[in-house]
């Protein structure tokens, strides 16, 4: 407003212009035309708004409101109202500023050097950088241990806060199962083994054995609570995990240095207790509540839709086959990543054990070697059996793959890597690739018949001697899962073991 007042006053009412470098002349005709068009538009819109801008305004306002427009009236003069008063105030303010423009400009000239916005802006920016730097340094000290601590503490705070103002009771209305003596014994064993793992974690071999006990009792729990597939999986994974950790432990210090900060032990103990009681209370609250499950669909459609009686396996290879495809991809990537990490890895391992004794020279005892050779065909037969029956009975590609891997790893343990390399290639990457390709192709095959990715089909064949035998496309998918699991597990363990072998050979020389 002040600028408009100055513009109008100086141009039209402030006398003849002075101090001009050139004498101005009247602009040419076509320079004035655009201005004249705008002036005419202003006048027409102002005088007859309903005929000119009303349709445009109605469309724009309706688009903004996303609703029918309220009743309204377009006019230049609406009488005295707050809008008019505000316009008048703006005009008055503008005139006042223009009237005082000389002293105001003088003030600006005077304080130009001292009131510098850029200096304030820079100071503010530097302060913000300093604060964020301080916060980052407090959180990220370059210590992974500290990161884990902060992460867990944050998870606990976020997890417990909603409980503080919860009004529902901890225990729900569902009646539980009665406790029997055997379960109590198994549970007590698990708890003791778990605490022993913590207590003895500095004596690493012992801690590893107690960890194995925990895993075995967990698989017993799966047997008890109607999950045979999980029990088989847990059992075979447990064997593979313990062998893996034993191999790795060879290259790590056998005993850990004692904690030199007792405060940290107490702090971590408190965090562990809070986390443990949170998990226990949450499980208790869920287990004692009745619930609605979507399992009915899977149970009802497993046989007619998936052609398999083992619902867990049908879910894995059929209903949620896409998930499983992603999971075997993750496993394959983990195997390949480990292979890449182990490439060119040089590690110093001790020639003697923790007590200073030389390792046993008889690395591959003859009884173990002979027995394991006898067991191999049997174990492979069991794996094939588990793979084939997986669709209808507890079993399937994951479990069969793990059993096969365990059977082969036992051979490596009993005979050594060199002996095995003469008989079996240790590059299992083609196996992984074949498994992933088979699983993906099974999925793609359904496209050829016009069905969505991974739609499965099944039929019954009457084989001579065997009798009726079911053949499902999901079985090919399961075979892909089997190949990936065997390939990835062997890739991990055999390459870690090879690290071991090269080390032992060097020591023997």
């Amino acid at each position, binding site marked *: 407003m002040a600028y408009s007042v100055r513009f109008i006053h100086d141009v039209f009412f402030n006398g003849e212009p002075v101090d001009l470098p050139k004498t101005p002349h009247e602009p040419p005709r076509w320079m004035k035309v655009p201005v004249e068009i705008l002036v005419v538009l202003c006048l027409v819109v102002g005088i007859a708004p309903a005929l000119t801008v009303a349709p445009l305004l109605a469309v724009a306002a309706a688009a903004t409101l996303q609703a029918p427009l309220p009743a309204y009236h377009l006019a230049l003069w609406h009488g005295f109202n707050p809008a008019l008063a505000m316009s008048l105030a703006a005009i008055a303010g503008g005139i006042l500023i223009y009237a005082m423009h000389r002293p105001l400009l003088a003030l600006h000239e005077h304080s130009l050097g001292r009131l510098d916005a850029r200096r304030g802006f820079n100071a503010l920016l530097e302060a913000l950088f300093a604060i964020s730097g301080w916060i980052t340094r407090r959180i990220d000290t*370059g210590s992974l*241990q500290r990161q*884990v601590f902060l992460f*867990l503490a944050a998870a606990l705070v976020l997890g417990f806060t909603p409980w503080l103002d919860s009004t529902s009771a901890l225990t729900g209305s569902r009646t539980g*199962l*009665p*406790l029997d003596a055997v*379960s109590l014994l198994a*549970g007590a064993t698990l*708890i003791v083994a778990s*605490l022993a*793992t913590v207590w003895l*974690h500095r004596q690493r071999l012992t*801690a590893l054995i107690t*960890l194995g006990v925990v895993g075995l009792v967990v698989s017993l*729990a799966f047997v008890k*609570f*109607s*999950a*045979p*597939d999980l029990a088989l*999986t847990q059992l075979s*994974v447990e064997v593979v995990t313990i062998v893996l*950790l034993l191999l790795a432990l060879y290259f*790590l*210090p056998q005993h*850990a*240095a004692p904690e030199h*900060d007792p405060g940290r032990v107490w702090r*971590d*103990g408190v*965090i*562990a207790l809070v986390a*443990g009681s949170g*998990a*226990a209370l*949450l*499980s208790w609250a869920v*287990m004692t509540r009745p*619930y609605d*499950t979507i*399992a009915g669909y899977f*149970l009802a459609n497993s046989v007619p839709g998936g052609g398999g*009686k*083992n*619902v*867990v396996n049908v879910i*894995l290879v059929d209903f*949620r086959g896409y998930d499983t495809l992603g*999971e075997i991809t993750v*496993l394959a990537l*983990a195997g390949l990543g*480990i292979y890449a*990490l182990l490439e060119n*890895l040089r590690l110093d391992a001790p020639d003697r054990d923790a007590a200073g004794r030389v390792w046993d020279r008889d690395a591959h005892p003859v009884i173990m070697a002979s027995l394991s050779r006898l067991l191999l065909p049997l174990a492979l037969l069991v794996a094939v059996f588990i793979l084939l029956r997986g669709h209808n009975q*507890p079993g399937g590609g994951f479990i069969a793959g793990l059993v096969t891997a365990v059977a082969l790893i036992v051979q490596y343990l009993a005979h050594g890597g060199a002996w095995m390399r003469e008989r079996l290639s240790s590059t299992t990457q083609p196996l992984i690739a074949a498994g992933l390709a088979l699983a993906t192709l099974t999925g793609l095959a359904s496209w050829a018949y016009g069905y969505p990715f991974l739609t499965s089909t099944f039929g019954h064949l009457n084989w001579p001697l065997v009798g009726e035998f079911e053949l499902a496309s999901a079985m090919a998918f399961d075979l892909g899962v089997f190949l990936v699991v065997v390939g*990835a597990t062997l890739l*991990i363990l055999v390459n*870690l073991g090879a*690290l071991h072998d090269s080390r032992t050979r060097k020591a023997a020389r």
Partner: protein
Amino acid sequence: MEALLALVIGVLTASGVFLALRGQTFPVVLGLTLLSYAVNLFLFVMGRLAIGVPPVISSAAAYTDPLPQALVLTAIVISFGMTAFVIVLALKARAELGNDHVDGVHADEADPR
């Protein structure tokens, strides 16, 4: 029975968290393994506890919930993959950095200046 399972999950979680907060790589791997047992059991009991009703279609009248079982089955295999990756990462760190602390530096080996 539910109380026993809740207690077991709690103990496994507490043990796992405590070991995961240790400074050296091997206890951290042990802790992560215990935590994965705890998580797998926790997911499993979301289907509630049932005895003698495996989800294999037969003439039985009732079955337990197969969905958590299917999810946990792959979780077991994936957590094996993760454990393997972490332990090999620990070996690699020991080879490259010469010690087995998660931070790559032992507190008592740190530069005394």
